[in-house]
């Protein structure tokens, strides 16, 4: 009997980006435990190499699917298409940058550990699985892998009580939200008889059991949106984000803000447009409302903060609002053969924002100094004088976050707003522009603190901000990417459109 049980065909090479990350994580844990004294830096180098290899493999597979077409893997559990490879590349890039920042951070804080890197890798796997999933339960597994890694990472600095507070808050609320998501999946399963995206779509046409108006399914849709909205920190499910971002070690915050958002938004886009397109008129107004609330709350609360990490946390909420504008735009054409600009614009925004926020938090991590707690605006005072190059890099990154032309941030914002205007969602476009107008003020506050505010007595007695090599490299990469995309965005915009077209054209 046992011998007769056949597993589904796996497609090992098609899964190679995931397998490389998984293998690296296991090696890191096992070898790290057996041989506790690796030379410092080797952990980071090893993880970064694995992330780099993942990026290369994802590009190869992207090329492959653009010839061969998108396909399902592992018993139709995950989809291999341009969309998932785009998300994979973006997540691997954040893992790579996070390694560069974390190495210096761990040295400065005298923390040990292969665990952090292993958790980056597992979180990356979780995010990629979320983006690739073709099944609500697989999505749930990815979500949990990502989240569990984040909970531990938030508490990874043993001597910071803020980190532990943030971890427990994140854990309780995260578990709470996951339960809702899972309940949503169960209700959709009850209503449609399946948790697979393509079968959910098909069920509406074939099964007599299901009506589009079936209350069970509608409740399920609502709860699925709750779970995803929590993960992307959309209002009113955003409460965890400021506390967690502020409390977590800064490199971890950077990683959460980038990789976490990519995974969650990729999952949200896929679920909404591939599993629930028939309900688009039901969920689009919800996304609209959430987007507006997120833009408003994020921008307004960011302006009144004094801690830069918290400020950037609210700014990250506001950015989530922008991406939701793209999701809303995608909602107008969800399920139609004609690809919508909204999906491409959102994915592009995610990639550009991820790199941007990595660089920004890398600078914050340096300014935090030993102990990682000088992240108030005062900590940035006089940075333009003492570390002009670092301050200049930070200025570019902040300008980009504000969406100033000739930076990647502008390309990103322009993309989602044009997508909204294309779908005649003028009201949300107007709100998004107003939010960017308000939010600009907060980035300006940081710049003023760095460049204009004069030193106060005692400033020179503070520990100097050091600029170690690998973190500097991360900042340089991030700034360079920001400017290159700002000056010549064509290639990357085309890439995002290409990637999402592969998904839409072949998906059921």
């Amino acid at each position, binding site marked *: 009997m046992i011998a007769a049980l056949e597993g589904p065909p796996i497609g090992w090479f098609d899964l190679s980006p995931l397998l490389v990350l998984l293998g690296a994580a296991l090696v890191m844990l096992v070898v790290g435990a057996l041989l506790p004294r690796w030379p410092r830096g080797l952990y980071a180098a090893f993880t970064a190499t694995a992330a780099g290899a993942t990026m290369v493999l994802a590009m190869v597979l992207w090329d492959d699917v653009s010839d061969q077409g998108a396909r399902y893997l592992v018993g139709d559990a995950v989809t291999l298409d341009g969309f998932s490879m785009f998300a994979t590349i973006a997540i691997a890039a954040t893992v790579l940058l996070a390694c560069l920042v974390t190495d210096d951070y761990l040295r400065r804080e005298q923390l040990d550990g292969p665990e952090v890197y292993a958790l980056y890798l597992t979180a990356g796997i979780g995010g990629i699985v979320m983006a690739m999933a073709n099944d609500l339960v697989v999505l749930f597994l990815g979500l949990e892998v990502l989240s569990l890694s984040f909970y531990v990472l938030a508490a990874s600095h043993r001597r910071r009580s803020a980190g532990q507070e943030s971890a427990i808050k994140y*854990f309780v609320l995260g*578990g709470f939200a996951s339960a809702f998501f899972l309940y949503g999946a*169960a209700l959709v399963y009850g209503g449609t008889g399946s948790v697979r995206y393509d079968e959910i779509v098909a069920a509406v046409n074939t099964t007599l059991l299901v009506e589009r108006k079936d209350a069970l399914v509608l409740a399920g849709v609502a709860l699925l949106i709750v779970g995803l909205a929590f993960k992307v920190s959309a209002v009113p499910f955003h409460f965890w984000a400021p506390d967690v971002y502020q409390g977590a070690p800064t490199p971890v915050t950077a990683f959460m803000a980038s990789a976490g958002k990519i995974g969650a938004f990729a999952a949200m886009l896929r679920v909404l447009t591939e599993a629930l397109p028939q309900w688009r008129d039901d969920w689009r107004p919800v996304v609209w409302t959430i987007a507006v609330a997120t833009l408003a709350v994020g921008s307004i609360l960011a302006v009144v903060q004094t801690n830069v990490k918290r400020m950037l946390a609210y700014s990250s909420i506001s950015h989530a609002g922008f991406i939701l504008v793209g999701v809303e735009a995608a909602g107008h054409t969800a399920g139609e053969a004609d690809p919508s600009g909204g999906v491409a614009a959102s994915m592009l925004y995610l990639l550009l924002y991820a790199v941007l926020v990595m660089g920004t938090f890398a600078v914050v991590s340096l300014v935090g100094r030993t102990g990682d707690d000088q992240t108030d605006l005062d900590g940035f005072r006089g940075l333009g004088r003492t570390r002009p190059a670092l301050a200049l890099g930070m200025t570019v990154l902040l300008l980009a976050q504000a969406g100033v032309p000739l930076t990647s941030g502008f390309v990103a914002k322009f993309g989602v707003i044009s997508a909204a205007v294309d779908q005649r969602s003028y009201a949300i476009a107007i709100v998004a522009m107003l939010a960017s107008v308000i939010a600009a003020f907060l980035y300006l506050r940081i710049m003023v603190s760095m460049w204009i505010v004069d030193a106060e007595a005692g400033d020179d007695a503070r520990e100097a901000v050091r600029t170690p090599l690998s973190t500097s490299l991360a900042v340089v990469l991030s700034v360079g990417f920001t400017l290159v995309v700002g000056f010549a965005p064509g290639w990357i915009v085309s890439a995002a459109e290409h990637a999402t077209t592969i998904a839409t054209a072949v998906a059921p």
Partner: protein
Amino acid sequence: MNAALLAELRPTATWYLVLAALLFCVGMVGVMVRRNPLVMFMCVELMLNAVNLSFVSLARELGDIRGQTIVFFVMVVAAAEVVVGLGIIVAILRRRPQATADDLAELKG
């Protein structure tokens, strides 16, 4: 009591679904009202298991085996959550033995 009435009272899938919904709500309210981090955490687990019950009963209702296999995945996830959650809670309680969830409010605004 006649047989017809007994048949009427035989538990159907709906009963289980309602029970699951109630358990879920108990868990949800528990997270909101309990102060002990450990109990809050147990309430989250209760919510997950309520969903498991839903999956099983729906699978039976639909005559579909996949709903039952999903439960195993969820149980694995719940076990992993226990490991991580207890780790974090123990780390905090070791530092502040009497801490309740309400005491952990340094990060705010």
